[in-house]
């Protein structure tokens, strides 16, 4: 069993991957594009470094297989930078894709004092991952965010459960459909772990995503630490279903807008991102030839999106994603 941690780094000035494409509403392109471009950047850096080492030393002295790599080739699997050159492992054996240098000050943390920021983390529990482990996932995801931003806590932690959406012709229909989506039991069972993060002071406020009026009412009756935010998705229509608007008002729950999709990292997408194909990172072995790389069944477990906004200036200083996955040994 190998744990994988994927990261995007700060994507806010990272170029086009942050731009919403027409027709790509509610897509996960921001996540997949920015993962892909972060992998690419890491590979390029590693290649440049290997190249530099190779040029000065004659042959690579740190990595045994570097001489077999044709660094000048731009395409083709032979041109790949070896995985070990741009990924890293922590003391527990988790594989970081790409490697994160936590000790590099200029890559992590925020420019100003903590109080200047409004920091939001949104945690996506993914459909294929075991519900029983969500407590661990939540902790792990949030810790990565805190470490990345070098802050003791986030202001708002929003939780997104699988299988929920807020779609349909506005008004009543979306709300009605929503009532039977997701899994009430699992969601309620997960919440204490989230509440614990709040009690530990790691998240000042808690929030939900995609809860319609009925689900929200049921949820509130069971929650000890109440969510103060419910993120909903509004396509082109601006009418919040009246029952939801009313409930939110009565319960002082802020209704925020988002445009994320709930199934943000499907298994196939992850496999493609890490796979041997032309748009993949070449970490996974080629299933047909079995050549090079890791083998086994890959399961995405969680994704966390984080945003740090300078409060009184409305400037997004840092935004990025971490994703956790597990590779069952094949």
């Amino acid at each position, binding site marked *: 069993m190998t744990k994988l941690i994927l990261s995007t780094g700060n994507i806010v*000035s990272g170029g086009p991957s942050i*731009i919403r494409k*027409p027709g790509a509403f509610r897509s996960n392109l921001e996540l997949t594009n920015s993962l892909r471009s972060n992998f690419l950047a890491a590979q390029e850096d590693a290649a440049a470094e290997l190249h530099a080492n190779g040029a000065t030393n004659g042959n690579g002295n740190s990595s045994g297989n570097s001489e077999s790599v044709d660094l000048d080739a731009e395409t083709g699997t032979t041109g790949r930078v070896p995985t070990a050159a741009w990924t890293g492992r922590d003391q527990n054996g988790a594989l970081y894709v790409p490697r994160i240098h936590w000790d590099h000050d200029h890559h992590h943390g925020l420019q100003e004092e903590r109080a200047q920021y409004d920091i939001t983390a949104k945690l996506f529990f993914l459909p294929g991952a075991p519900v029983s482990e969500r407590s661990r996932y939540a902790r792990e995801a949030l810790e990565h965010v805190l470490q990345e931003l070098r802050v003791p806590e986030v202001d708002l932690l929003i939780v997104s459960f699988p299988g929920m959406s807020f779609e349909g012709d506005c008004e009543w229909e979306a709300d009605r459909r929503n009532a039977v989506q997701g899994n009430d039991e699992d969601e309620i069972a997960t919440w204490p772990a989230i509440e614990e993060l709040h009690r530990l002071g790691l998240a000042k406020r808690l929030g939900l995503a995609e809860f319609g009026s009925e689900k929200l009412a049921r949820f509130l009756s069971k929650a000890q630490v109440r969510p103060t935010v419910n993120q909903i998705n509004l396509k082109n229509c601006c009418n919040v279903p009246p029952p939801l608007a009313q409930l939110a008002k009565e319960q002082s729950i802020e209704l925020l807008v988002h445009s994320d999709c709930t199934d943000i990292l499907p298994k196939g997408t992850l496999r493609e991102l890490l796979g041997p194909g032309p748009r993949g990172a070449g970490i996974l072995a080629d299933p047909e030839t079995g050549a090079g790389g890791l083998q086994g069944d890959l399961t995405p477990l969680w994704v966390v999106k984080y945003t740090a906004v300078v409060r009184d200036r409305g400037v997004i200083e840092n935004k990025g994603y971490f994703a956790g996955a597990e590779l069952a040994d094949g």
Partner: protein
Amino acid sequence: MGLLALGTALDWPEAKKQAHLVRSWGIKQLLEIWNKAKGKERDAMLWGDEVEYLVVTYSKDDPKVLLSLRQADILKALENDTALSKAGCAPPLPDGSNSHTSQPPPVFHPEFGRFMLEATPGKPWGIEFKELLEVEPNMRLRRCIAKAHMLSNEYPITLTTFPRLGSPGVFTDPYYPVSGPKLRSQFVPDEIANPHIRFPTLAANIRSRRGRKVQVNVPVFKDEKTPWPWKDPTVNYDLHNWPEDDDVRNGAAPENFIHMDAMAFGMGSCCLQITFQAKNLTEGRQMYDQLSPLGPILLALTAATPVYKGFLADTDVRWNQISKAVDDRTPEELGEKPLVNDRWRIPKSRYASNSTYISEDPRLRPEYLDPDLVIDESIKQQLLDGGMDDRLATHFAHLFIRDPIVIFSEDLKELDLSKTDHFENIQSTNWQHMRFKPPPADNSIGWRVEFRPMEIQITDFENAAFAVFIVLITRVILSFDLNFYIPIKKVDENMETAHARDAVLTRKFYFRRNLFPTARPSRSGSSTPVASRPPTPTGPVEDEYRLMSVNEIINGTAYAKATSSSPPSSSSSSSSSPPLKRRKTSSSEVEDNEEEDEEFPGLIPLVESYLDSVNVDVATRCQLATYLDLIRKRASGELWTAARWIRHFVARHPEYKRDSVVGEGITRDLVAAVVRIGECEVNGRGFRGVCGAGEGEDGEEGVEGVERLLGGFR
């Protein structure tokens, strides 16, 4: 319009002698602020808008509309009413709530034109998204309060210009004869200007410095029955009151141009200006540079000025007319005579598009700077010696090539370094499309940047939309670290292009292809720290930009392709060779047109991406979406600019004879329509209902074409 201190204003010959002293004291004051404020940090994002109004007289039964010259009385009434009673002036928001309780009362200011009024919010706006929604109701409140302090037949309207300003006959209330000693205009009386000594002196000294009257010539629109060549029939060649009356006999009024001869024709225009406070000097300079290339685009998009002096013009915006109306350059400076007495040739009026970029951003390539920039080297040296960096010293040494126009003798007794009056004297009479504003002498507020090109819109809905849009754009620029740099000469060209009739739909503008950093700063995977910015790119500058329509710039390439039914003619473009293609897409259907295969993301999608990344509540996001919709539709042509609507209104009017003449009857009905739209808005009745064509519930006809201007909004 700057400070209105009272005093003894010097005539030009006297003022000219003191120009050097004022400049030198101004520079000392600037250095004083510079040293005090250069290290200011962490100022909050605050911003303000300025809305300017024309005051007109109108009543249902009166066949004439006039400009009211009661500015002073109206301002006095507003001043005396310290509470600015909001009774009846607090229309609810579209969602039924009412949020203007937290704001102090708005502030009203005089303007150059005695028929004008300016209003600003009582305190600056912040960046809380909910606060952005207060802008529109606050603008309506301002309009309503202004109206409440006027006579029942007076209205504050937000047309950029009064269509018949300077036409023969009566166009002001009260009437004054033309050809006064200050303006010496054969079209407008001296009383058209604010009587405060500053304003007539400004006009008189500009004229005097120039050695003749200003010449505001705007091409006339050639309609089916417009005589051609066209000679402005209102020009009087037989006037002999002042030496300047010779101007028209010496060719000041060329064929096919509407001829105007006074500052009032320019400075009597209303615009929508937005000022931002930056967090520090560096951010202020970045904002100044990055917003600059957007100026011409927003000018074209807000076009609202198709009529001058009773004739349809062949241009849609006010900009060049103001530029000419305050052009104080001498024949030597203009290059008409050899340089003998003056120090240099000056390519632009004091009112013109920017000539400098001021940031120390490594992305600013020397090739972007104006190669013809005129600066005062000795002033630059003084600033450098005072500790200012080269780039900013160059900027101010450029502004300071101008003479101060209005000098009060009382201010020349001694240099007061606790004030900025001499600095401001030069700074605030450089009317460029951006203005970089140092903190005031007491250092109480931060470094600011003013965005000045936009034309005022007829409704506060539109004005709020454009104001909020620009605010959001600044947040997008800072968040995504966007790069809009193009050579400043191309910004100048774009400014000219923006004047064309319907430039928003028919013209293309130079714009930067790639707004993003060329290479992503490495975040991981490298054990050697990398520079936080990629090295300055060194490819040819010409490859960095291309021609784009406003639709493409605002909405992005994909949207523009999908919405443009008739491809805009490229008449304005390309004698230059087509830019090299940068990177071929893998698309199988690469188009023939080399410029077309590049995706430009569009400013609105960028704003949406920004909004997607911050926490915004549902109601706020929906309001903001309405504003973005308006701008999207104006850019795509689905909705009309005010200029196009006015042209349509004139063309459909029964009194219009297809001869470019906008007569009194047409003007009256146009103003009536604008008043009506304003009333619909202020009463929260919506634009579709009572204002929509043919739907008048009180039996009146709707306003012609209003649905093309404002669509289904509200």
